[in-house]
Every structure is written in structure tokens, then in C-alpha cells.
């Protein structure tokens, strides 16, 4: 499959690197004891440190360090035993200290990689350049007053991991797959909840285009993409814009752009030229962060099975397709649910029921798996009834609907409604004979060579039995009778 884009003058390669800001799961902030939960009243979760009061000093939160190391390990990345917090100096109303504490020359995590899942069971490895810890800024609210901005510092000092990819992606689709996989990994190890609506995960996309084989073009950075859909739109728009500029004989300005989701386009942020001199230097309030190899090793031991390993296991142990496996491992809870359903049962049947039926219903109702009215044990019970021929697959779907709506067990529903399959040969024979007797023309037609009529007969018989007839037995009986 080619990812090249066609312009008026030829083919273009799109080059994308992503910077993901992931909010670290921790009760308190990176350098203060204020809370981090979502949705508090303005300035309620603010300490004197977060407000940049005179004489206040940062004190590092150990859980945030651990989360960063765990994430690095999950990305197969090098963990730097010494890292340094630096100050990125710039003025902004929602940045109380006048600088952001971040990591610059010596980040806590170095190079790693992510294997992303693409359509057609393809995969691609995307390099990770680095991961560093930094504090978030506050929030400016612009719509409460015509001439004023309102500043809420609740997010000021909240811990972020900035995860920087290498420019290894070649399409918006790959970028989407990268964020999806990264998000899955973060959620597996519990270092970020991945909630893009609440801003727990945000992306900046570096986008450039080049003619095949040429050097990298100048890139534009699109800031603050807060959904995967917007990211795809923004990248696609930006690629087209850059190609058009170059094909028209112009050059792309290296700049920061914003995505306007209402218009579906990116636009330049009017930024002052000097805004880019951040005057980074090591934060003199914070000593270099040193970790022991023992500490890192112990965390490595504690890592859960990660999505990629789980996917491989599902494919090998259960014979699932790469697509089904990657869908099931996208969330740890989903994978666990599936494994509970599949335990001691046909794994492909289990996968099919989880993906098609259960997810279908959950997605339509926007219900999280944790609140599913059908438990893994309960769905397993339904599959057991299919496997031992108590009910047909067709009936099972109706039973599942009932289970989903009422939360009742499959066996109870089958018993109460008398939905057991009819497997009594005598009774089935009678039905088959009756249908044949009622339709002598079609029987003659069949016997004259129209073999396709089997399907019609099957439908009539199933209908007459209200779907309870065992289709396999009916099929055998029917063919035998028609052949007589």
C-alpha cells in the first residue's frame, strides 16, 4: 500500500513526528502537594508553589518519577540513571513562575520504540526519541469577559510526560495508529488515563512534505490536537497546504500552527520571533535526579504483559487474526474480559462474540466495558449453550439481546422462553415432510436440478420451528428426503 500523496506535479511523501503530552496518574502535582483531579472549581487545587508565590520551592513527587520510568520501560527505552530538570523561560499569564520546569538536555528516558498496527494486518515500528517529565501550565479562559482573560491555575504544576517520536510516520493513518497504540500502553501500565476529552492526552504534530528521495522539508508544528480525529484532519489539511505552496513555487515557513476544528483547517499562530528563546538552564532549585539500577530493574519486573506481547500471544495461543487480536488487546480490561470468556471455550467463537456482539452493543450505548450488563462469565455461559447445541447461533443472538437488556443469565432465558434447539429426529422429520408436502412444485423443481432451493426449504423449516430446529440436522434430513 502506498502512502504517497499525489500533487499536481508529482508524488509527495508526508513525514510526521508526534509529541504527545500525557498527564501522569498521580494524586498530587509534580512539585507540590495540591490535587490533580479533573473538574475542580477555579484555583481550588493550587498551592503557593503552583501560584509562583515568592520563596516557594519545588519538591519532587516520587510517584511521578516511577510512572515515567515504567512508561520508558514499556516503550523499550533506555532509562537514564541521571536526569536533570531545567527551566524553560517564557512569560505567559497562566505560567506563574515565568518558567516551566521541564527536562531538556538530560531527559529521564532516552530512545525506544512502538510497534503500531495498520490495516491489512500490517505493522510498523516507530522510534521514540525521548520521554521527559515536565509541569503543565494553568488555563486561560477567554470567553468570560470581552477585554479580559481569566486565569485558573488548577492545572499549573500537574505532571506531564512529553513523549517525542522520531519522524517515522508517513500518513495520518499511521499517526492515528501510533497515538492509539501509545495510549493503550500508557493505560496498560496505569501511567496515564489517556482521556483526550479531559486533556489528559494531547498531541502536537510536526508535519513536513518532500518529494521522494529528497531531504526533509521545513516542518510546521500543529499544536494541541485533542482528539485522534482532529489530528488526522489537521495532518491531512496541513500536508495538502504544504504541497500546494511548494507546487506554486513558494516555500513553507517553519512555524507553529493551530487547528481550527470548526473550519477543519490549520492557521498560523501569530507568535513573536523572540518567543522562541527559552533560555533553558538547569533548575537551581532541583538537584539532578539520580536513579539506581536496582530501582529500574525492580520496576521492570513489575511491568504487566504489554499490548504487543499480548497480541502475539492471542494470535499464537488462540489462533486469532492480527486484527481481532489487536482489537482485543487495545485495553487491558478488554483483553482480560476476553480471556475470561475464552477460558475453556472455543477462542475464535469467544473473540467473535466479544468483538461483534458485545462491543457492538456497548459502543451503540456508549457504555464502558466495566459497566457491561453482561459479565464475562455470563457471556461464557451463552457460548457454552451454543457449543453444546442447546441453542443455535441465530437464537443465541436473541438471547444475548435479552441478556444485555435484563442482565439475566443465558440458561434462564432459554429455559423460560423454551428456546432449546429441537434435536429430536422424529419431530424434525415430521416438520421437513410437512414443508415438502406443502410445496410439491418446489420439490419437483429441486429434483429437476435447482439445487439452490435447499436454502429456501431451510428457511421455511426454521421459520416453522421458530428458529429452534437444529440447522445442521435439518440440513442433513432435508437433503436426504429431497434426494429420495
Amino acid at each position, binding site marked *: 500500500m502506498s502512502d504517497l500523496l499525489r500533487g499536481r506535479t508529482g508524488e509527495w511523501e508526508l513525514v510526521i513526528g508526534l509529541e504527545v503530552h500525557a498527564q501522569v496518574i498521580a494524586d498530587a502535582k509534580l512539585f507540590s502537594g495540591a490535587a490533580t483531579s479533573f473538574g475542580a472549581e477555579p484555583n481550588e487545587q493550587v498551592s503557593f508553589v503552583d501560584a509562583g*508565590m*515568592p*520563596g516557594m520551592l519545588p519538591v519532587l513527587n516520587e510517584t511521578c518519577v516511577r510512572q515515567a520510568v515504567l512508561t520508558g520501560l514499556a516503550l523499550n527505552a533506555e532509562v537514564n540513571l541521571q536526569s536533570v530538570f531545567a527551566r524553560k523561560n517564557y512569560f505567559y499569564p497562566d505560567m506563574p513562575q515565568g518558567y516551566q520546569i521541564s527536562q531538556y538536555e538530560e531527559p529521564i528516558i532516552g530512545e525506544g520504540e512502538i510497534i503500531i498496527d495498520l490495516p491489512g494486518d500490517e505493522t510498523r515500528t516507530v522510534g521514540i526519541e525521548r520521554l521527559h517529565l515536565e509541569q503543565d501550565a494553568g488555563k486561560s479562559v477567554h470567553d468570560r469577559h470581552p477585554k479580559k482573560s481569566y486565569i485558573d491555575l488548577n492545572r499549573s504544576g500537574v505532571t506531564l510526560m512529553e513523549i517525542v517520536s522520531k519522524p517515522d510516520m508517513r500518513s495520518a493513518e499511521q499517526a492515528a495508529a501510533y497515538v492509539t497504540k501509545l495510549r493503550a500502553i500508557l493505560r496498560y501500565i496505569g501511567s496515564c488515563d489517556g482521556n483526550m476529552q479531559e486533556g489528559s492526552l494531547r498531541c502536537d504534530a510536526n508535519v513536513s512534505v518532500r518529494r521522494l528521495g529528497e531531504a526533509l522539508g521545513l516542518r510546521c508544528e500543529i499544536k494541541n490536537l485533542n482528539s485522534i480525529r482532529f489530528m488526522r484532519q489537521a495532518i491531512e489539511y496541513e500536508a495538502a497546504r504544504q504541497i500546494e505552496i511548494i507546487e506554486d513555487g513558494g516555500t513553507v515557513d517553519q512555524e507553529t500552527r493551530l487547528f481550527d476544528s470548526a473550519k477543519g483547517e490549520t492557521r498560523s499562530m501569530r507568535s513573536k520571533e523572540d518567543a522562541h528563546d527559552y533560555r533553558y538552564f538547569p533548575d537551581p532549585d532541583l538537584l539532578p535526579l539520580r536513579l539506581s539500577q536496582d530501582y529500574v530493574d525492580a520496576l521492570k519486573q513489575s511491568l504487566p504483559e504489554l499490548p504487543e506481547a499480548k497480541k502475539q500471544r492471542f494470535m499464537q495461543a488462540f489462533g486469532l487474526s492480527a486484527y481481532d487480536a489487536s482489537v482485543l488487546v487495545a485495553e487491558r480490561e478488554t483483553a482480560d474480559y476476553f480471556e475470561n470468556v475464552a477460558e475453556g471455550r472455543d477462542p475464535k467463537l469467544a473473540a467473535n462474540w466479544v468483538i461483534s456482539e458485545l462491543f457492538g452493543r456497548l459502543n451503540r450505548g456508549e457504555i464502558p466495558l466495566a459497566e457491561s450488563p453482561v459479565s464475562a462469565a455470563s457471556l461464557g455461559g451463552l457460548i457454552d449453550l451454543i457449543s453444546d447445541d442447546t441453542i443455535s447461533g441465530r437464537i443465541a443472538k436473541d438471547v444475548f439481546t435479552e441478556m444485555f437488556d435484563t442482565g439475566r443469565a443465558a440458561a434462564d432465558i432459554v429455559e423460560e422462553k423454551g428456546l432449546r434447539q429441537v434435536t429430536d429426529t422424529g419431530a424434525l422429520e415430521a416438520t421437513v415432510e410437512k414443508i415438502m408436502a406443502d410445496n410439491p412444485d418446489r420439490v419437483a423443481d429441486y429434483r429437476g436440478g435447482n439445487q439452490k432451493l435447499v436454502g429456501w426449504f431451510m428457511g421455511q423449516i426454521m421459520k416453522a420451528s421458530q428458529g429452534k430446529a437444529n440447522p445442521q440436522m435439518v440440513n442433513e434430513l432435508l437433503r436426504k428426503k429431497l434426494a429420495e
Partner: protein
Amino acid sequence: MVRLTDLTLAQARDGIVGGEFSAQELTEAYLTAMGAVRSLNCFIRETPDVAMAMATAADDRRARGEGGAMNGIPIAIKDLFCTKGVPATAGSHILDGFTPPYESTVTHNLWEAGAVMLGKTNLDEFAMGSSNMTSYFGPVTNPWQRTGDDAKLVPGGSSGGSAAIVAAHGAVAATGTDTGGSIRQPGSFCGIVGMKPTYGRCSRWGTIAFASSLDQAGPLTRTVRDAAIMLGAMA
């Protein structure tokens, strides 16, 4: 009869412990002494009410047989340390009206040891200077003058107000901060002891920062013994 304001910190401490005078008497003597040398412009803000309340509390502790290493000792605080509910300026116009809702660790420790706050002393703006001439609140005058010359001299800086008030016996002792010499140089210029401990010995929490990798709090006193006692209470 020895004047109360001529006693060293160690002598004053022993006097209070021994019941020779009360913390309130000592504090009143210092509040009077501060007034007598007000022309030196050592204080940006005097806190007599706070001082008397703290002295009373010190006497109560003494009566119960309690009290820390500096129980009832009236001291001055460089206006770079945030003290809860008392405006802090760092000698700058830019902190206009700022009243910290928190207490620096150093002053917290001093109050725990029983010390009494006379007020916040003048300093070079944000502790940047060696003369105390850069304060928004005007220069501090050194209580010393050249022989046969009444030219006003600088007390040194940046802890100029702290050094001058201790030298002029308007406080038993004072806190200072030293980034490149801001305790020791004014100590030398005013004829008193100035001690800068090891970087990190005293907490920087709640002390307005100048240069983080260098800033260090320490005592300005009239004797080495007094400095030793006070550093023990600050650290």
C-alpha cells in the same frame, strides 16, 4: 547597672531563664531602642504589636518552665523572609502590597525556639547589592562614622538593615541572607559577627529567592557565641 540592650544574646537568654527580667521588659527596651535609632532607616516595617504578643507568650512559656533556645529574644528579620500576615517587600517596589499567607521555614524555626519579632529590616532590592543603596525604601545608614567626619556611611549589603540595627543595639540579633557576601560584608562594615552557613544548612523555603544555587540564610549577632546559638535555632 547594665542596659538590657547591651546584653549579648547569650546573656539575655540566661537573664530570662534566670528570672532577672522578663521577655516583655527586654522587648520593651528594644522597641524603645529601635525608636532611638530610627534615623538609620534599618526597618522597612516595625512590628511592635507582634513583638509584645510574642514576648508575652515567651514569658508564659518561661512561667511553665518551657521555652526554646531563644525564648524571649527580640530579633529583627531581613525583609526577604516571608512572615505570615506581615507585608514582605524584598526592598522592592514590585512587591507593593504583598502580604505572604505563609511563614518561611527559618522564621518558623526561630519562633519555635521562642524568638520575638521586632520588625522587617531594610535591604538592597532583592538582596542585589553591597551597600544597601538599591532599596526602594531608601538607604540604610551605618551607625559607624569615620573619626572626625560625620559623613553617612553605607552599612554594606544586602543585609544592611539587619547589620546596622544589631550594631546600633536596636535588636539582639537579626537574620540575614548571603548570596555572595550579603551577611559577612555588612557584618564587617558594622563591626558585628556575620555567619553564612554551608549552602543548604538553613532551608530556603519561604525566603524570597535571588540566586537559588547561592542563597543561604544566617545570623547577624554581636558575638560568635550568639551566632552559634542563633544558627542552631534557624537551621
